[in-house]
């Protein structure tokens, strides 16, 4: 389920599509052209990473996709339908876990269902199951302050998953973690997302992380963010089935991908 974005039969629209998207921010200090001429599609079940220099519009792309703001021109489509506003279908994991310290872990996971007015007993059962799956079974009634960074990040993923989204947006969700935790959590969360067949877009500054987790890596130019290149990530040397995020880091293709993407990000324009 990778790659080919053109020439597919048109019967099923792509899961996600950016069509000629432009975005300008307006503020009293002036106008910022943040995203320009953005065109790409993502298929169902794909894992995409987006890399690019700071301020090139990566977070902006995710906000558009989540419906937190509208494009200046062009369209963002999910399942062929324009995004109008936040929907339970799209889960957003932000850089800060933003767990509410006045709620327990379980109550935090139930925030989305509460806001959406979902069936609470069912949501509660779901939240308990998800959090237990993520190894937080003993901590359902703990406060976020009693958890380590990695556990908090897993709790935040549980909160996102409790809405049963089929698209996951991850905006540098691991950057607040130390190196060791970051490696294991990103592997763990990558596995969870693949196992559950979610479509995911990861924004990161960490090129190895982008390569290790994704089917494709999108490289953006500096502001205004344009599509610079899309890299198909495959590891023929490791056989048919793609191994976990940790294992691919040792593959010979990995260094090549890293080198290419790194050079691309360094060069301007």
């Amino acid at each position, binding site marked *: 389920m990778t790659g080919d974005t053109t020439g597919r039969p048109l019967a099923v629209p792509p899961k996600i599509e950016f069509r000629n998207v432009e975005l300008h921010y307006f503020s009293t200090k002036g106008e910022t052209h943040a995203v320009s001429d953005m065109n790409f599609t993502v298929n169902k079940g794909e894992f995409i990473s987006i890399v690019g220099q700071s301020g090139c519009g990566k977070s902006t792309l995710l906000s558009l996709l989540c419906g937190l703001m509208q494009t200046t021109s062009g369209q963002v489509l999910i399942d062929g339908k324009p995004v109008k506003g*936040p929907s339970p279908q799209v889960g957003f994991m932000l850089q800060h876990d933003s767990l509410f310290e006045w709620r327990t872990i379980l109550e935090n996971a139930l925030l989305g269902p509460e806001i959406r007015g979902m069936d609470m007993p069912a949501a509660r059962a779901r939240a308990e199951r998800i959090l237990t799956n993520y190894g937080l079974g003993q901590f359902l009634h703990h406060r976020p302050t009693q*958890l380590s960074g990695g556990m908090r990040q897993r709790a935040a993923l549980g909160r996102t998953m409790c809405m049963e989204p089929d698209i996951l947006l991850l905006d540098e969700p691991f950057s607040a973690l130390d190196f060791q935790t970051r490696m294991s959590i990103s592997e763990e969360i990558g596995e969870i997302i693949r196992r559950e067949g979610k479509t995911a877009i990861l924004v990161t500054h960490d090129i190895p992380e982008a390569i290790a987790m994704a089917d494709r890596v999108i490289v953006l130019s500096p502001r205004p963010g344009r599509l610079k290149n899309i890299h198909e990530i495959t590891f023929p040397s490791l056989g048919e089935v793609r191994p976990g995020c940790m294992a691919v880091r040792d593959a010979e293709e990995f260094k090549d991908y890293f080198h290419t993407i790194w050079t691309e990000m360094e060069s301007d324009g």
Partner: protein
Amino acid sequence: MADTTPNATPSVAYQNWAARQGRARRKVIVGRLLLLLGFLALWEYAPRNGMVNPMLTSYPSAVWDGFWDLIAQGKLGLHIGVTLMEVMISFAIAMILGTVIAICLWLSPMLERVLDPFLVVLNALPKIALVPIFYIWLGPTGSIYAVAIAVALFITILMLYTGFNQSDPNKIKLAKTLGAGQVQILTKVILPGNVHTFMATLKANVGLSLVGVIVGEFQASKAGLGYLIVYGSQIFRMDMVMAAIVILSLISVGIYLVVQKAEALLTR
């Protein structure tokens, strides 16, 4: 998970440290008591030995007699009751009204932008200056409540509104991604995230309401501790004035303890 439970068997070094802490704590308490006793002793000794004029300062044993005098007249309960009642009512009104207005301002940034300069001026304006006007407009009882509410209201609005505005933008963004509208952001993020702001406002306000009530009673009243102070000074009964002031400070301590209890309950 961070394990913060203490070791089961404390080491010798810890026991020594704990003992030092205990001694330091006792020293502080003894120091406070000595300061209080020293002050009372000086206050008793100096006027009685003609070092200062007892007519002006009174002294503790006279204050004590004055206190019993007031009780004997059977009016002390009434005065305390009236003042406490006025404080509690105006405090509650200022708190509720201030919270409602702060919420409205947060819900409508346009309204906030229009009202901002007026709120700043009204907050800076010494409300005490309005006492005569309130008296003419509202009469003796009404003016007491009006002053007390005015003193506490604007600071409530500003403190709460500032707290609301300083809420974590990441938490607000998160709630938005989950589909929260303005009202849900208010009830799920802003209000629960500002319990500590609310407590700080509460603490500031009980004190301010007390100030407002006493000043209001100075202007015009027939009962209350403020009345007692003014009346006592007019008939030159310093013991009565001092007794009223001592009672006022006891009330402040009482209120402080109640607020502390409430805070412990709310921020659990």
